[in-house]
C-alpha cells in the first residue's frame, strides 16, 4: 500500500488499538494484521499487540460484540449468546427488496390499473406470473374482479398496503409523467 498515511509522531498503544478497531469495523471482509500494519505504516508486531489487547478488552468488559479471527483476518461480530435476540430483531425488518421484474410489474399495475395479466405481458413484453405472485404475497397488489372479455381474466390493482409502503395518501399522489418531465428539462 503505497498510500500509507505519513508516519505521525509515534502513536500511543491506545491510539493504535482505537485505529485497529475502526479499521476492523469499516472493513467489508475480515482484515489481516498485515494489512492493518500497512495502512497505518506500523510494524506488524505492534499491531498484533494492539489487537490482542483490544480482544482482551472486548472480552473483559462483557461487550455485546467480539473481535474474532476468521479466514486469516479480524472481524467484528455479535457474541453468539445473543443469537435469539438478534433473530427476533431481524424478523422485525420488512422482507426483502423487490426484484426489478417485480418493480416493473408493480409500476405497470400502479399506472394502468385495473389491469389483467395478458395486458401486463403486452406492456412489459415478458411473462410476469412470478412477479405478480410476489406482489400478491407482499400484499402490494390485490385482485380487482374479472374483466368481461374472452377468458374473463383477473384484473389487478394496487392495495392499501401499497399506498402505505410508498407513502401515498391516495393514487392521485403518484407522480405523473408530467411531473417527471418538468424535472428532466
Amino acid at each position, binding site marked *: 500500500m503505497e498510500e500509507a498515511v505519513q508516519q505521525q509522531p509515534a502513536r500511543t498503544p491506545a491510539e493504535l488499538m482505537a485505529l485497529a478497531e475502526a479499521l476492523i469495523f*469499516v472493513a467489508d471482509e475480515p482484515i489481516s494484521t498485515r494489512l492493518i500494519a500497512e495502512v497505518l505504516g506500523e510494524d506488524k508486531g505492534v499491531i498484533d499487540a494492539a489487537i490482542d489487547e483490544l480482544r482482551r478488552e472486548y472480552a473483559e468488559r462483557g461487550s455485546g460484540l467480539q473481535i474474532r479471527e476468521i479466514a486469516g483476518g479480524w472481524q467484528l461480530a455479535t457474541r453468539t449468546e445473543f443469537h435469539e435476540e438478534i433473530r427476533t430483531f431481524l424478523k422485525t425488518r420488512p422482507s426483502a427488496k423487490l426484484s426489478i421484474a417485480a418493480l416493473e410489474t408493480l409500476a405497470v399495475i400502479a399506472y394502468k390499473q385495473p389491469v389483467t395479466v395478458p395486458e401486463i405481458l403486452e406492456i412489459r413484453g415478458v411473462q410476469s406470473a412470478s412477479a405478480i405472485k410476489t406482489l400478491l404475497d407482499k400484499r402490494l397488489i390485490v385482485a380487482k374482479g374479472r374483466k368481461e372479455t374472452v377468458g374473463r381474466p383477473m384484473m389487478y390493482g394496487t392495495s392499501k398496503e401499497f399506498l402505505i409502503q410508498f407513502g401515498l395518501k391516495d393514487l392521485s399522489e403518484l407522480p405523473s409523467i408530467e411531473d417527471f418531465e418538468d424535472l428532466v428539462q
Partner: protein
Amino acid sequence: MTQEPEQYSFDFHSETAEIVRDSEELKVKIGDFAGPLDLLLFLIRQEKANIFDIPIAKITDEYLNYIRLMKRLDIAVAADFLVMAAQLIEIKTKMLLPRDPLSQEEDESEDPRQELVDRLLEHEKFKTAAGMLYERSTLEQAVFTRGPIETDETNAEIDATVFDLLGVFQKILARHAEEVKMEIEREEISLSDMIRTLKDRIAAFGEVSLLVFFDEMQNRRELVTAFIAVLEIVKNGGVSLKQKGTFGDIILKSI
C-alpha cells in the same frame, strides 16, 4: 433625468443556465452566480451599498452591463436573468416618477424596491443555510459506518420510491415503443416455417413446453401462427400433448 427605459432584445431560446468559468477581463468569475439574485447581491456588495437602500439606477446599469458582457462572451443568458433585468428596469422607472405629494406618509411602504429587498434577504438566508448544510455534510464525511455483515442480505424494506416506479414505468413504455418499431421491421414468419421450427425443436429435445414456446412469440400474429402450427403437428400425428394438471403447462412430446 427623463431617460427612456432601455430596450434590450434577448433571445429567450437559450435554456441553459450554465455559465462558463473565468474570464480574463473580469475580477469576478462569471459562473459564481447561480441565479439573478446572486448576481444582484454581488453587485450590491461590490458597490458597498446598503441592501435596505439600493441605489437602483446604478445597480440596474451594472446588472445590464453584466448581461451584455455575458452575451459578448457568448455565454447563454438564462431566462431568469432576463426576467430580473426587466424587473430592475421597471423599479428604476418607478423610482423616477415624481412622488405623489399627498401620500407622503405612505412613502416607505410604497418604496418600489421593497419587494426586491425582501426577496434578496430571503434568498440570502437560504444561501447561508446552504453553507451550513455544506459544513455539516463535510463533517459527516469524516464518519464511517460498518462494512456489510452477513445478516444485511435478508434485509431492507422496499427500496424504491414513487419516482422509481414512474422511472421504471417510463422505461417499459420506451422499450415497448422500441419493440413495436422492431416488429414492423421484422419479416413475418410463415406457417410452414413455424411448423419446421417446432418439429426441429421436438426432434432435438424430445419434448417442448408450449408455455415456453408461446412465450417466445413476439406478437399476436406470431402467437396465432405458432398455435396453428401446434394443431397441425398434433393432427398429423407423431406427437402427443400432455398437460401437467389443470391449468398446468402443456408438453408436446414425440411418440
